[in-house]
């Protein structure tokens, strides 16, 4: 039944959209109109949104660059590779320890270079005469001091422009050093339209230069890789705790808390569990084609989603022992989650949230808000593509524009010796017919309620306008957006770096998140914004001191 309120709401949202677009120059308004979508959640018929397109200059975007996606996001969390930024000093400096991806380097002989920033610190003479010699020497100096098993080179904008062949330098040094795997990433900041291109460039090179190098049979049962989990605030630690408790072996996480050897062994896993579809779905595809490992989409954000994901993994392995253990773990973990949810819910129920973050988090975190009884009234991604909004069924029809064409797609074929389909065709079919979806992601939009607004590549102006017009109880985005929103008196939660909190994944993470959102939306501070004399400027009586 459609209530009068429901009937009215879309019209309101249309007005809101119009109000937002009204301020733009006509050309900008036309472009943004296609990236702002009123979700009417019609049955299986999600409207089309424009995504993964160029940001409009001067609009104050939330987006970063390809280098940030490559060096910062994908390779940043890998502790035992020396990551050298080839360029002027800034890029290396800003990506130095700023992303809160935790790593466990507590083993006595563990290498950990994540606390270091390595750069060739290019100077004007390097720009004029070329930086290859300096890069070569920098690799040698890093090797001589640290003797790492791997050195990665990251290109910054001027490197591509002056034509330094970083791949040739890397190969030369790899051959020269002998016991150090050196490879490079052409992740100049101007490539692509956002961080997303950098994820792709990073993952391609990891796949090409690292995956498959270690054929050693790792101990453990029910071997999986966790793809697209970056261990922000210790999320990966909590997921690993749960997996371990279930008896599931995590061979490699791409790339939270990762190490060189994990990547090298990834082809020995029997299932790929994809967390962040945006940043890594193509690696899952490549691992399947080359090594025969199927993939499923999972999500460990939200207690219910975590339980569902564990069951999905158990279903794939189709072993009563695992299924039983997974159910036992869920039964053991859920009461503590429910207890906190029940405590918090009376204070969060009915409140509203806006989420503008990442390539999957704006979707995944809606789960946690749902568990708090909160509605997501508007959401959008910073750098995702249409399939992340609308589902993978749109993939065949996606337009490849000039910006995407420049980002390499690796052609893979089955590995001559290592290809090994993990399940027979019949088994796969049986699993599919029993309800296990392989290679499937429906995207954010179908999961969102009617009368919500989906906005791609939100900018500063739109953020402010949305808060003003729709008045959410909490707004989630990144550090750049944090304080302009909070100045308005609306609590703001960072969902890139979690402010200083976390983990928010898994069961314990859900508890942390419930408490954090309770703290934020119910903080006393929001009641202090006006001084007593501002709230009550009129003098009700004249006091006379005698």
């Amino acid at each position, binding site marked *: 039944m459609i209530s009068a309120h429901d009937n009215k709401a879309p019209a309101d949202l249309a007005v809101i959209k119009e109000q937002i677009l009204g301020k733009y120059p006509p050309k900008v308004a036309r472009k943004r109109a296609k990236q702002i979508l009123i979700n009417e959640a019609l049955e299986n018929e999600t409207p089309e949104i424009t995504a993964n397109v160029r940001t409009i*200059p*001067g609009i104050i975007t939330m987006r970063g660059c390809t280098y940030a996606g490559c060096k910062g996001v994908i390779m940043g969390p890998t502790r035992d590779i020396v990551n050298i930024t080839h360029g002027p000093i800034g890029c290396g400096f800003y990506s130095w320890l700023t992303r809160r991806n935790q790593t466990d380097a507590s083993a006595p002989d563990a290498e950990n*270079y994540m606390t270091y*920033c390595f750069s060739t610190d290019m100077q*004007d003479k390097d*720009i004029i005469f070329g930086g290859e010699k300096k890069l070569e020497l920098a690799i*040698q100096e890093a090797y001589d001091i640290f003797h790492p098993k791997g050195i990665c080179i990251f290109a910054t904008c001027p490197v591509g*422009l002056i034509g330094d062949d970083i791949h040739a330098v890397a190969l030369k040094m790899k051959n020269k050093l002998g016991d150090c795997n050196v490879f490079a990433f052409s992740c100049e900041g101007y490539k692509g339209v956002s961080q997303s291109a950098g994820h792709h460039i990073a993952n391609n090179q990891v796949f090409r230069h690292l995956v498959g190098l270690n054929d050693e049979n790792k101990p453990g049962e029910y071997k999986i890789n966790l793809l697209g989990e970056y261990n922000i605030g210790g999320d990966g630690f909590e997921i690993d705790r749960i997996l371990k408790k279930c008896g599931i072996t995590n061979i490699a996480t791409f790339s939270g808390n990762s190490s060189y050897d994990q990547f090298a062994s990834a082809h020995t896993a029997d299932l790929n569990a994809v967390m962040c579809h945006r940043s890594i779905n193509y690696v899952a595809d490549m691992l399947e084609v080359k090594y025969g490992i199927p993939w499923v989409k999972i999500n460990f954000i939200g207690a219910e989603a975590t339980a569902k994901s564990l069951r999905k993994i158990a279903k794939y392995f189709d072993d009563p022992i695992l299924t039983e253990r997974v159910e036992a773990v869920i039964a053991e973990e859920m009461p503590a989650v429910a207890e906190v949810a029940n405590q918090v819910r009376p204070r969060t129920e009915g409140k509203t949230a806006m989420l503008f973050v990442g390539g999957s988090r704006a979707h995944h975190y809606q789960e946690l808000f749902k568990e708090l009884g909160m509605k997501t009234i508007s959401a959008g991604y910073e750098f995702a593509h249409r399939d992340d909004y609308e589902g993978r069924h749109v993939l065949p029809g996606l337009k490849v524009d000039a910006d995407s064409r420049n980002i390499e797609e690796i052609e893979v074929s089955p590995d001559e010796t290592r290809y090994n389909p993990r399940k027979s065709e019949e088994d796969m079919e049986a699993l599919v017919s029993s309800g296990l979806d392989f290679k499937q992601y429906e995207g954010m939009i179908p999961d969102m309620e009617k009368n919500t607004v989906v906005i791609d590549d939100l900018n500063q102006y739109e953020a402010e306008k949305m808060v003003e017009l729709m008045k959410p109880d909490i707004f989630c985005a990144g*550090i750049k957006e944090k304080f302009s929103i909070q100045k308005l008196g609306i609590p703001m939660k960072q969902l890139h770096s979690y402010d200083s909190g976390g983990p928010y994944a898994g069961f314990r993470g859900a508890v942390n998140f419930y408490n954090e959102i309770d703290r934020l939306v119910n903080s006393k501070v929001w009641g202090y914004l006006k001084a007593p004399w501002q709230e009550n400027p009129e003098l009700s009586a004249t006091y006379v001191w005698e």
Partner: protein
Amino acid sequence: MLLRHTPKEISERHALTINPAKTCQPIGAMYAALGINGCMPHSHGSQGCCAYHRSALTRHYKEPISAGTSSFTEGASVFGGQANLLQAIDNIFTIYEPEVVAVHTTCLSETIGDDLPQIIDKATKEGKVPKGKHVLYANTPSYVGSHVTGFSNMVKGMARVAESTGHKNGKVNIIPGWVEPADMEEIKRLAALIGVDIILFPDTSGILNGPLSGEYKMFPEGGVTIAQLRSAGDSIGTLALGEWCSADAARFLDTNNKVPCRVLDIPIGLKATDRFVDALRIIAGVSVPEEVTHERGQLVDMISDMHQYFFQKKVALAGDPDQLIAMVEFLVSIDMWPVHVVTGTPGKAFVARIKELTADLPFEVNVKADQQADMFLLHQWVKNEPVDLLLGNTYLKYISRDEDIPMVRWGFPILDRVGHQYFPTVGYKGALRLLEKILSALLDRKDRDDPEQSFELVM
């Protein structure tokens, strides 16, 4: 250990920088531009530059930092960024309505050779700059100098706005250098106390230490206005605080607008503040008010009261040249021993100045200012010659923890503590705060480490 791979043995490096004691030019330009009233900084380069600078400044100030980017694509990098910048200027003025847009370049736009004055001229001719509004610019190639150079270049960009009418305005220009909003406030307070009418640029006070009131103003009150910058060409003189951050702009005004300048150190510590106050007094032709002399006396009092705890304590410092010079002088003046000093901002003059300031110490100070003068080297120096205190930005906390040495956060960026937005380190009051912080660090450590039989109640 967090920096477990740093060896004690120092090997010479020529190409690799590890744990830099600097960052790149554009962020300095962005910070400086935020000190102009109603100004939107704009980064002419890839999106990432702007995102990184905004993030770093936001983490340091815990305040909104708005800035535009030209969002270069591969095409723009090949064909030039003119179309992007023209579109950006149009969009910024239409959507955000600032008074001023301050454009700075990046390594990308510098490498391809985009000509900012020409593009801005074109934007103006095409009507993309509304009447009465302004576009400033600075060239800030990331592969020259450091963030300090970028700050200096944008300040010079502000000086280019100055006009000379031939009538002196009776004011003194003060270029405060890369200091905190609270420091800029303190400089204004001191000048007002002494009775000097000043034009301070840039001035981030009120902009990057704003209140929470339920309102968001992208362009808060505060900052130097274009009218003030114009008028700077008629000032009676310029005091530039810091050779690296401020002198270029002051000399530009000297040459171009015949406004004489004096370059002083940033007034951090007793002696540098003395010279600053003395210079202001002479320029204004007034006596220093008792209130200022009183503040000075309080500082001298604290130095005397607690001298035994400062005496011959060894300090390792990382930071920026202007700040380090003033701080090293301050430390020497209270009988502390700066033993290791690094800055990634290149400059032979810096090394010479530090050597001169430490010439009377009974040892030769380790000082380096180039690409390999980084925190990795500083850490190695500390391993070879341990110190009692670390002074520098947040990144030093890794050395502090590994080597178990107390630290005082000072400089840029401070990502894990607050206070720098609100409490100055310049002037006599700022020096008191610095001493308080240094003492707290040293005495907390003493309290932690003293054996029970000699644990002190009174210190």
